[in-house]
């Protein structure tokens, strides 16, 4: 039974987005976490020092790339801009894609159908450079582990890379039908066998029908969306699918950049299939209801590129809902909303015909967004909070944790039948002239402490080891290990960016962790501290 448990636990990893390893990696959800973080002056100083040190290298690496792209970038625009003939700032607040303006939201809600049909292709790419504060191994006590080779734990750390590239097939199809289909290549994806290689997969996909009944009496926008991720159809950027700043590189190449810090998300992750119906009345009340299922059969396209063994499998119809109240006044607009989903998710690498392998996950969230948009300033405040309650499958609970207490003989506590995870994200952003911008974001995850979430612990010799030199069969995860079984990541991300062109954004982020996997020090039991994960992330993000 231990073996079953280990397999489940590997599949689940942490309890954020637990059941789809690829999706978890894609979202950068390593983990777990804890209480509210505050911005630390020490971190800011470190960030400035680190930026000074690496900026030159980064810029030198970028120049040829930008020069190669400039001729196209100056003339060609992404597909929606071609369709409406408008500049990016019409739909993206201060040019900081993907955040939408009120007009951008209406463009989306009306099914991407404003304008005229054009060539529906766009390309997007991110080049980046990341540097983690401490890349030395945390398990130096184990034999045969080098302290200097950061190996796969920090693959491509400190090297400029082409981090990700996307192809979009998007735009107006008919007066009522439009699409947003993104296919993404990750040059450093982690394959099922653990190797790192280039991989192309179905990313955000939203195909919709929309209509608008508008006259003096009422304004009703309504439609249906066929999509592959809960909230990808949502027009507000506090939605789980859209709050993240930048399409960060996969943890296969870089760990601990912004995407690794927790974002409110749904337990299912993406690459499933759902049909949702939505309505927006009098630019005030928004409602959306839908159901999601496994992306099989005709819907394989929604998870194309992901191995059958790695997709999220759901049992039956899994309901998703979203309601929001919105208000515009002067240059201000406000949204207060709530969202949620109930899902029965197959434990990774288990038999889908056995209903005992399905865990139940309930997500409930609240979110709010305020925007002030009046040239040359934009200001955005966002808040998103998500609670996720996981009721573990009967079969996974039949197992036991492989770990012992420190004496090496007493077992740790029994598996918990359910866990709760609370994730909070706050973000403030400002742009000037749609050219210069910055943001600060605070994140905090907290939740149940349970042995289910332990990925590091004592073996039968009372040792914590990632290499298992004595052959106990019990190992701990280094770097991402969780000794306490407490989900908890707290910290902050600071960002500054510059848009020399409307479709090119150069940015620097610094993410500082005050707590990781429930502890500020020795969170993995192998000596690693939360602040070791502090990361500088420089990027160039372009679309044409």
């Amino acid at each position, binding site marked *: 039974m231990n073996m079953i448990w280990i397999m489940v636990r590997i599949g689940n990893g942490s309890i954020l987005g637990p059941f789809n390893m690829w999706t978890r990696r894609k979202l950068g959800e390593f983990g777990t976490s804890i209480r509210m973080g505050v911005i630390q002056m020490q971190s800011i100083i470190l960030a400035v020092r680190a930026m000074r040190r690496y900026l030159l290298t980064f810029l030198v690496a970028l120049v040829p790339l930008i020069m190669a792209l400039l001729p196209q970038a100056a003339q060609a625009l992404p597909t929606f801009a071609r369709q*409406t003939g408008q500049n990016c700032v019409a739909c993206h607040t201060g040019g900081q894609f993907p955040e939408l303006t*009120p007009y951008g939201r209406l463009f989306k809600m009306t099914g991407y159908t*404003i304008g005229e049909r054009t060539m529906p292709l766009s390309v997007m790419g991110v080049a980046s450079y990341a540097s983690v504060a401490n890349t030395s191994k945390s398990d130096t006590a184990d034999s045969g582990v080098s302290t200097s080779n950061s190996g796969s734990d920090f693959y491509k750390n400190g090297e400029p890379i082409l981090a990700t590239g996307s192809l979009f097939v998007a735009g107006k199809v008919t007066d009522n039908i439009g699409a947003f289909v993104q296919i993404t290549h990750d040059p450093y994806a982690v394959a099922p066998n653990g190797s790192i290689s280039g991989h192309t997969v179905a990313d955000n996909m939203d195909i919709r029908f929309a209509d608008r009944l508008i006259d003096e009496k009422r304004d009703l926008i309504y439609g249906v969306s066929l999509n592959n991720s809960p909230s990808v159809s949502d027009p507000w950027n506090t939605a789980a699918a859209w709050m993240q700043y930048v399409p960060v590189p996969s943890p296969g190449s870089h760990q601990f950049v912004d995407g690794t810090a927790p974002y409110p998300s749904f337990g299912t992750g993406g690459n499933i299939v759902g049909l949702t119906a939505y309505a927006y009345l009098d630019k005030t009340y928004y409602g959306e209801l839908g159901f999601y299922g*496994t992306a099989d059969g005709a819907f394989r396209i929604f998870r194309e590129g992901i191995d059958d063994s790695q997709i999220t499998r759901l049992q039956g119809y899994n309901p998703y809902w979203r309601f929001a109240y919105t208000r515009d006044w002067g240059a201000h607009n406000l949204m207060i909303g709530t969202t949620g989903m109930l899902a029965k998710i197959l434990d990774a690498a288990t038999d889908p015909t056995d209903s005992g392998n399905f865990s139940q996950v309930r997500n409930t969230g609240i979110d709010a967004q305020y925007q002030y*948009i009046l040239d040359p300033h934009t200001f955005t405040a966002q808040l998103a909070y998500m609670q996720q309650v996981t009721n573990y499958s009967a079969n996974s609970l039949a197992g036991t944790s492989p770990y012992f207490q420190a004496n090496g003989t007493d077992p740790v506590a029994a598996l918990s039948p359910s866990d709760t995870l609370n994730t909070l994200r706050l973000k403030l952003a400002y742009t000037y002239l749609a050219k210069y911008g910055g943001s600060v974001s605070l994140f905090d995850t907290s939740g149940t402490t349970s042995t289910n979430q332990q990925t590091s612990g004592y073996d039968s010799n009372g040792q914590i080891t990632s290499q298992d030199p004595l052959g106990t069969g019990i190992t701990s995860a280094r770097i991402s290990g969780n000794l306490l079984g407490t989900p908890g990541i707290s910290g902050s991300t600071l960002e500054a960016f510059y848009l020399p062109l409307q479709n090119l954004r150069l940015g620097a982020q610094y993410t500082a962790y005050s707590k990781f996997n429930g502890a500020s020090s020795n969170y993995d039991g192998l000596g690693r501290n939360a602040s070791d994960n502090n990361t500088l992330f420089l990027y160039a993000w372009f679309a044409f």
Partner: protein
Amino acid sequence: MHKTMVMLAVAAIALVSGCSNIERSRNLANPEVSAKTLAAQVCSNCHGLDGNSTSPAFPRLAGQQVDYIVSQLNNFRDHQRIDPPGYQYMWGLSRHLSDEQIAGLADYYSKQTVRRDPTESLDAKQIATGKSIFENGLPEEAVIACSACHGPTGQGMAAFPRLALQHSDYLIKQLDIFQNTQGRPGTPMETVTHPLTGPDKAAVAAYLQAFPD
């Protein structure tokens, strides 16, 4: 489950794509779409259904002069207006509008009832200063009275736009464009606005937003 979802999706798409939707089209390159439809389905997103925009980033079009709207839409379409909001938002939207659609949009907005922004936050002294500039100009600076061209009630005349009840933030931005850039050529406003100070512009804009009945 899969069959049901496929059927639902196909049914939804078949249901809707079979229907002609010229009355509710958002197609900006189809001359068959009426101006009224475009106003409701596209322009209303920023300017409001009746031309009374909520955000001062976008001008209030209700009650605006027909000739002025026609001239501006032509200027956008012909890329004569090169102020950033002009080209960022309006070049593309206007690029394939027909003359008939432009005339129809101008007619539609000119017939809408202009509404008033809240004025509680405006400063009475500033409004009084603005009133003086609007009615008398600044003789010592050789700034002529706004009312000379825009009418005593700020209602505009032909190619001179209506100003009364326009958003003050929008007016200040336009005065800045006239004064400091070549973004809106072909008007006497570059000369007229030349001597205006920041407080002058704010005052006259406040007065126009609060324009008394």
